């Protein structure tokens, strides 16, 4: 089961069981819904910004272990960061997940989020992991319409 454990690492299972920042915020600066129509994964994301810094972030929704753990990990990793840093992290995670067979990524750029690296081996699950990130990216760029994973570049291969 070694390859399976690459995907379902203990950290991921733990975040799935006990998602962090799993709550709606009272007065967020921006909120956005994300939806993965193929899986039915749904996320509602709230962000409180202060002087370009993510002061607080919370999410609610339902989904598979990968999407829930990815959202939970994301909230931990971007809280307290400047929006520009969060965007750079989005790019790094995107690069890690869509690196393709034998592709490279820089572990330093993703930090703790490296536990998600195994998802890249499961093309049908990449959008599960990307859902929360697309939603955050949309929220930070002032989007109002719900984000769908079917429009991203990981939308193929379902």
């Amino acid at each position: 089961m070694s390859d399976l454990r690459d995907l379902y690492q203990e950290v991921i299972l733990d975040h799935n069981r006990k998602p962090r920042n799993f709550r709606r915020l009272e007065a967020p600066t921006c909120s956005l819904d994300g939806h993965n129509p193929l899986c039915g994964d749904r996320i509602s994301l709230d962000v409180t910004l202060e002087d370009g810094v993510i002061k607080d972030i919370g999410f609610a929704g339902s989904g598979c272990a990968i999407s829930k753990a990815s959202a939970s990990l994301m909230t931990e990793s971007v809280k307290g960061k400047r929006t520009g840093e969060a965007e750079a992290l989005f790019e790094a995670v995107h690069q890690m997940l869509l690196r393709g067979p034998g592709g490279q990524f820089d572990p330093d750029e993703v930090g703790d989020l490296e536990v998600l690296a195994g998802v890249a081996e499961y093309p049908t699950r990449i959008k599960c992991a990307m859902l929360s990130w697309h939603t955050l990216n949309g929220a930070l760029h002032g989007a109002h319409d719900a984000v769908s994973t079917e429009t991203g570049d990981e939308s193929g291969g379902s």
Partner: protein
Amino acid sequence: MTAIDARHATTATQPFDVTRVREDFPILRQLVRGKPLVYLDSAATAQKPQAVIDTLVRYYTTENANVHRGVHYLSQQATDDYEGGRSKVRAFLNAKEDREIIFVRGTTEGINLVAATYGRKNLGPDDEIIMTAMEHHSNIVPWQILCQEQGAKLRVIPMNERGELLMEEYEKLLNPRTKMVSVVHQSNALGTLNPVAEIIRLAHQQGVPVLLDGAQAVPHMVIDVQSLDCDFLTFSGHKLFGPTGIGVLYGKAALLEAMPPYQGGGDMIRSVTFERTTYNDLPYKFEAGTPHIEGSIGLGAAIDYLTALGLEQTAAYEHELLAYGTGRLSEVPGLTIIGTAREKAGVLSFVLENVHPHDIGTILDTEGIAIRTGHHCCQPVMDRFGIPATARASLAFYNTREEIDALVAGLHKVVEVFG
């Protein structure tokens, strides 16, 4: 021998020999992720027997030509075999005439054809279409589009917790505004077998035609359109162990004749001038353009194969397997079967406590076990049961008890990972 007799011919003589039958399906010999493939996704698409594969190869190797157009030898050959496929479908469904068999791309196109032609012509503002709460999206959306265009309305027969239709509600829904009843025969998401004979009888009392979505039912039971007396029936070749891209719309000749054409083009015309076109006779009126020639021939080969096995025998075997699977799945802690209708076939849809179906699907995949997870194109069914998705194992006659055992072992592994 009539079609029905032929289909009964091989039944009840010897027990169903699944080991031998599996040898007819080359794909089942494969290893997937280093493990023997356990294919439990036949409701999505069925695997193809060697006889079908060989037929397609033979067609392209020795016979390929366009149909209905050439005086040359190959064209005649291809036309005969293409039309031969139609005759086989007619016999298989026990339809009266070959011209009642229209080739389409699949179930989806069959329903779209009826909605766009019969529907546009016969439905107006406030007319009603009755369907069930367990329709595939392909039997919802074409009618919704029609409703938007014509101002008609959808009416839905509700179901109980087991996934059985509330027939007394259906009777209440039928009224003088009802212009069409379009229902799924066997639910792909729940496995429920709907009481279609009774649905048809009640609709006909009011003079309302009935379309059956036979995508799941046709591969798994003997269907006789004359004794059922359905007005339309549509199914997909790829779920009947035949090629993708070919499907069938059966319609009663009188209805089809009165319907306007679906698409315009070659083959569907008798004469064309810039002022006016006269349409061709049935079935060609509904088959514009070069058809799916090898699709018809391959579907014919699939029907021959299935007829030789005996559809009653394969259905009985699948039924036993379903009972065995239902029992074994109930041993898995935290598992709930979704869809427990008393009349049911071929489908084991389930959810597992605290585990999302997609995680179940991925873990089983690492064991070489192919199931489907998601909403199965039946979002209203998921909403009815208050779940986002299910995991679904679907059966065909080439599946075995050992494969069910492998599924159960895989599910125990899922529980272990998420426990």
